[in-house]
């Protein structure tokens, strides 16, 4: 079970219409691969975030499917094109059914 999962997002607050902005996200999560063994030789069960979605005003920017080969504390950097003011919504889906969310507003002038 993942504890202290904290999403962090860095996106610009302001942009001009049609600008391509860079968005960075990081979420603290152990991303237990299911390959490791504990001291007694028992396999530590897999526990990862398996999907990450970023939307802007309800439309998809990027939708990432993740496997255990993604490093601890999944980090993503990508670009979005903003035509109007709105909100980025970020959603992470955990193997255990938890959903972590964050959002960031942007004003387009």
């Amino acid at each position: 079970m993942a504890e202290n999962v904290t999403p962090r997002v860095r996106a610009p607050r302001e942009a001009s219409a049609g600008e391509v902005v860079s968005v960075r996200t990081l979420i603290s999560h152990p991303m237990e691969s299911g390959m490791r063994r504990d001291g007694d030789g028992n396999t530590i069960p897999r526990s990862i975030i398996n999907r990450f979605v970023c939307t802007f005003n309800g439309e998809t920017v990027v939708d990432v499917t993740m496997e255990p080969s993604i490093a601890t504390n999944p980090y993503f950097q990508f670009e979005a094109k903003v035509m109007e003011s709105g909100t980025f919504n970020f959603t992470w889906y955990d193997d255990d059914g938890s959903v972590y969310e964050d959002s960031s507003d942007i004003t387009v002038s």
Partner: protein
Amino acid sequence: MSLTRREFVGTSLTGAAAFAVLPSMGLAEGADEAIAAYTGGAATSDAGITLIAPEIAENGNTVQIEVSAPGAEEIIIFAAGNPNPNVATFKFGPMAGSQAATTRIRLAGEQDVVAIAKMPDGSFAKAVSNVKVTIGGCGG
């Protein structure tokens, strides 16, 4: 997690043994199969996709890679030498500013990282980058 020295040596040996045996069982073939399953066996071109990965990664637990394929619908990443070659699939939506992304992955050892882009016309583009890893990131 507290490990005694004895336990640590024990698990390390088990892991090392697993890695020593597995490659000879054809991990690269596993990656080829995974790639074929994705492309449906279609031929891939080399143009239209860029994969930036370090030549040498000191720590296989976090290796930053950058992939870019202008106009692609999807980009899928494979690590040919990992126990499970699939790494991630990026699907780009209508609001994407570019078909590019940066992320951090785990690599078990020196191997090829493969990125395949699926274009809207159904064709595929492939980029391969060999990464040398000083310390594997597979937890064995």
